[in-house]
């Protein structure tokens, strides 16, 4: 067992060795520019890119021509939201998204607000879910775009994408979904799910970092975007720049593996996740699941350990690499905006840990992690004045705290 145990698969994943193997020839031998039309080097590169396009399209039920290569989901989100807003501004200036979206979406939405667009930020329910009814209630005649994630990166909650997509199509509003966490974990079908634009990133699905795609629907409706980077007019004019051939090949291979292995892998990670959850909940009191037990990613477990602060907890099991929703671990001083939007309570937001199970997680690792976590929580609760109060029957929530900051 290699320490520390990696349990942060939502942050990033290692490259699958089969992906690396597929990429290698494109660094040294087949190094051509996919846009070179006059010689074999260019043709080889172009062929490799087109194969990758097919592999990616197959994972999400798209046509290969609808795949636009980017540097990753953040760029795809910028292109989708800004590109569509600029293109369709004459139709209307209202956009709908959600408070628990990734910062990449929220920051772009804020930027668009400064450009004169109006954004509705829906509040998810307590499990992090947005319903189609909530979207319907927020739609206006001037709504041009709905941007809602497929799966949340912190709590793993799955949105009812198919219902939301159907609603948007019925109302003639474009629907963008961030599938960065969902792709390769749950079935994605842009046709059946009525998706107009979708992004995913290589490094979340055992592919390389720095490469991703934006799916842009070509018919019913044909989505047009204003390019956010001008240049040689690559990628149907939507994203200029010489294609990153080795990474694109890697992303293609990663998508192919994800498609072929998803049923088995999702069942395996879900079983390990459930085992971890069961151990934590049976051996500790005052623990709370964040997210939706029914509608969530198979590989995600987000738990709040009441009366213990997240960063100190992570320090306590340094042999397990995980993330916390606590303010102290991130650059900002605010706790997780996702947990806050779910009205989890700031105290519990500070006490949250996200465990990510992945392709290489073993049962032995899960048992080791469970033991470490449970031990650290018990030790820190010995130190916790709040746990002491809770055992005395005083709910710390009822105390009138003198907040300093």
């Amino acid at each position, binding site marked *: 067992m290699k320490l520390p145990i990696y349990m942060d698969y939502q942050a990033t994943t290692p490259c699958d060795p089969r992906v690396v193997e597929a990429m290698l020839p494109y660094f040294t031998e087949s190094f051509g520019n996919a846009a070179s039309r006059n010689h074999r080097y260019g043709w080889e590169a172009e062929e490799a890119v087109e194969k990758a396009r097919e592999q990616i399209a197959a994972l999400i039920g798209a046509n290969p021509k609808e795949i636009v290569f980017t540097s990753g989901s953040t760029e795809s989100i910028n292109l989708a939201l800004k590109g569509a807003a600029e293109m369709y501004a004459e139709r209307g200036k209202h956009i709908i998204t959600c408070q628990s979206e990734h910062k990449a979406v929220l920051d772009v939405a804020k930027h668009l607000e400064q450009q004169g667009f109006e954004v509705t930020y829906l509040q998810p329910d307590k499990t992090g879910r947005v319903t189609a009814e909530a979207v319907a209630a927020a739609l206006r005649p001037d709504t041009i775009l709905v941007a809602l994630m497929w799966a949340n990166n912190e709590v793993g909650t799955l949105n009812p994408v198919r219902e939301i997509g159907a609603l948007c199509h019925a109302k003639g509003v474009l629907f963008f979904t961030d599938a960065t966490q969902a792709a390769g974990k749950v079935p994605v079908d842009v046709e059946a799910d009525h998706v107009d634009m979708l992004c995913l990133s290589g490094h979340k699905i055992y592919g390389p970092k720095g490469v991703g795609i934006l799916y842009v629907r070509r018919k019913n409706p044909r989505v047009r975007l204003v390019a956010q980077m001008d240049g040689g007019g690559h990628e149907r004019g939507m994203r200029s720049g010489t294609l990153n051939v080795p990474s694109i090949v890697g992303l293609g291979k990663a998508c192919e593996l994800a498609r072929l292995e998803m049923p088995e892998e999702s069942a395996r990670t879900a079983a390990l996740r459930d085992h971890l959850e069961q151990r934590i909940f049976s051996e500790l009191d005052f623990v709370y699941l964040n997210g939706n037990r029914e509608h969530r990613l198979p590989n995600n477990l987000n738990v709040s350990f009441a009366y213990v602060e997240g960063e100190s907890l992570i320090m306590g099991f340094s042999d397990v690499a995980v993330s916390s929703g606590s303010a102290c671990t991130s650059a900002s001083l605010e706790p997780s905006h996702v947990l806050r939007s779910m009205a989890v309570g700031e105290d519990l937001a500070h006490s949250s840990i996200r465990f990510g199970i992945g392709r290489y997680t073993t049962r032995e690792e899960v048992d080791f992690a469970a033991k470490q976590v449970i031990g650290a929580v018990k030790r820190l609760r010995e130190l916790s*004045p709040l746990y002491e109060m809770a055992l005395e029957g005083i709910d710390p929530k009822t105390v009138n705290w003198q907040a*300093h900051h």
Partner: protein
Amino acid sequence: MAYSKKVIDHYQNPRNVGSLDKSAPTVGTGVVGAPECGDVMKLQIQVEGDRIVDAKFKTFGCGSAIASSSLATEWIKGKTLDEALAIQNTQIVEELSLPPVKIHCSVLAEDAIKAAVHDYKSKQAGEAKA
């Protein structure tokens, strides 16, 4: 985030963890911070004459908050009340090499000392009146 060796030492081997009888007239209790801010410190002192003969703490907070309060109890034990009140957060910052984002942990520890001494003094004043 990298922690200093001293923070890690206090986190792994916190000094003076525990609780004193908060109803005892010779015990002063300070509770500062708030759960929604991510840190709560409870610091207690046992006083004989004007000298702190014992100190205990419990802290909900990050490693730096735990280390700051652990260090505070270590420092105030054996000191007079006035000497304890003279301890400043900057001394804690220096001793533990806290980064700027963790300075509030040291401020909280200083506040906890002051709150405990204040609680003890007001108890004594109350006793004197009674």
